[in-house]
């Protein structure tokens, strides 16, 4: 103890004390905050909004403004609805890593419960598309054929005819739909994230969205058969032709060179 007091005038002493103080404050907060929440005996909805507001203040406010009004770094979130939050945060696009042409999908950092709280808070800012329920996005009884027709009319121009994705202008791109959950596909159509146009229920009813989800699952799901064996990314005849020219003809040339390079003579010269 004597040693400790002897060091009280050390240049780093203040830093150490500050760290202790911060740890103590944080620890006390963590210990008491849940109790405070339980005491505020309100409806689950307003509780979620309250929690979402706290998460929002930490993770989103720097770009979208303290009240979701938007800043030069991020658009306003008034009226985007809970579906947009569920999509953007649920696919890891938000919070954005860095500004750029397009915010890509990445590891999701919030739990689904936290995402729901954030969504509840943002939905409270203004009415917008609501996160769909399980039954709204379930494609099990949908019409895959009709879905294919709708997909080719509305989606295939950017996302490719089997949802492999494609390039747009200035570094933007339509992402691949492989492994995207039905809920997120539904929300993307509903809300039109980033540069994707939206396909609201007024022009594309819920049933048609289900058909599209069923089609995407049929042509780009885990169990989707590839009858020929080499899908080559499903990018179409150009990539397939290029593959045949480079690797097909390349293999023939390699075999011909190999045959000619090996002499059949008894005495190698």
């Amino acid at each position, binding site marked *: 103890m004597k040693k400790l007091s002897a060091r009280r005038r050390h240049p780093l002493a203040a830093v150490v004390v500050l760290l202790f103080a911060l740890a103590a404050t944080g620890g006390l907060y963590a210990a008491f905050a849940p109790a405070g929440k339980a005491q505020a005996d309100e409806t689950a909805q307003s509780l979620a909004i309250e929690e979402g507001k706290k998460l929002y203040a930490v993770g989103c406010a720097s770009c979208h403004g303290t009240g979701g009004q938007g800043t030069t770094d991020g658009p306003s979130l008034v009226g985007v609805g809970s579906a947009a939050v569920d999509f953007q945060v649920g696919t890891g696009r938000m919070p954005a890593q860095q500004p750029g042409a397009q915010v890509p999908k990445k590891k999701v950092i919030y739990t689904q419960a936290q995402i729901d709280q954030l969504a509840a808070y943002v939905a409270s800012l203004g009415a917008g598309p609501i996160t769909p329920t399980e039954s709204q996005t379930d494609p099990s009884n949908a019409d895959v054929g009709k879905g294919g027709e709708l997909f080719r*009319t509305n989606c295939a*121009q950017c996302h490719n005819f089997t949802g492999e994705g494609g390039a*747009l*202008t200035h570094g933007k791109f339509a992402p691949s739909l492989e492994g995207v959950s039905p809920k997120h596909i539904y929300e993307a159509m509903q809300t039109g994230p980033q540069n994707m*146009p*939206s396909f609201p229920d007024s*022009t594309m009813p819920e049933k048609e969205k289900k058909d599209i989800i069923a089609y995407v699952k049929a042509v780009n799901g885990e169990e989707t058969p590839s009858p020929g*064996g080499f899908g080559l990314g499903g990018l179409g005849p150009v990539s397939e032709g290029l593959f045949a020219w480079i690797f097909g003809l390349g293999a023939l040339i390699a075999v011909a060179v190999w*045959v000619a390079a090996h002499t*059949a003579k008894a005495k190698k010269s």
Partner: protein
Amino acid sequence: MSSQENPEEALPAEQGNAHGEVAPKDDPFADPGLPPHKPRIQDLDERAAKRSERVVAFLFTLSMIATIGFIASFVAFPIDKIVYVWPLGHVSALNLSLGLTLGIALFCIGAGAVHWARTLMSDVEVADERHAIQASPEVKAKVMADFKAGAEESVIGRRKLIRTTMFGALALVPLSGVVLLRDLGPLPEKKLRETSWDKGKRLINQNTMEPLRAEDVVVGSLTFAVPEGLKEDDHEFNQKIAKDALMIVRIQPDEIKNKQQREWAAEGIVAYSKICTHVGCPISLYEQQTHHVLCPCHQSTFDLSDGARVIFGPAGHPLPQLRIKVNDQGYLEAMGDFAEPVGPAFWERG
């Protein structure tokens, strides 16, 4: 005739010196001739030759087995059977087995033939000189004489009527081909300039085939529309949709930079032709924040907030805009046809 029937006569005298001619020592550019022949192991050792024979026979036999396998798998596998094969994934059993067996059958024939040629067929180098191309004077004279005799015997020189009518017949026959060119037509006339859009025709949502209401179209959304009355089982559906297809977006009126575009829109809802003005690809890669529309074929880019002006790519014209309004019942309807031809430019477009 006799010299033509025996081409060997035209060959140079010194032929068949397969092991190289010895050039005069003072000629620096002399043909060095062929290198000395080296034997193969199969030429020296009969057992090695037997081995090669067995290899070739094995390859041919494998090909036969693969062909039988091809026929067997064609019979055995139903066309829709999907199996999991590592590392290809879920593949059609029929496609995979047909491809593999046919591939093996063809490859083994080729490989067997190559191995046969390289190890067992004679590989002694042989030089074979070319013939002189020119025919001998006697042959030429005989051909000319034969031709003259033939012309004489056909009486074409004497019987002028036959000659003249034959020339007439030969000259007229190609006319039938010229007449058939008419079937390349008829000319398109007004078809390139007109679409099915007309005053009062409502815009039908291509997804639901229901008429579109102004409030259905929200800012940031993308909708495709066809004219009222266009049915998919129409005889001319494909020709019509290729000109009628519309792209409907809603832009905040103050974001629309082009005055005419703002006037032709209904409450900020703009209707543009979906057909690219470059070579007519359906164009609808719409970016809702920039209002740019990109053509997937040649990357022509149009700015939908500025009269669909071309901002990039090979397209020569802005996308034609259809003038629309909201009618009394709240439905979107056209106020006439497009003001200019839709789709790619053509010679008489003006």
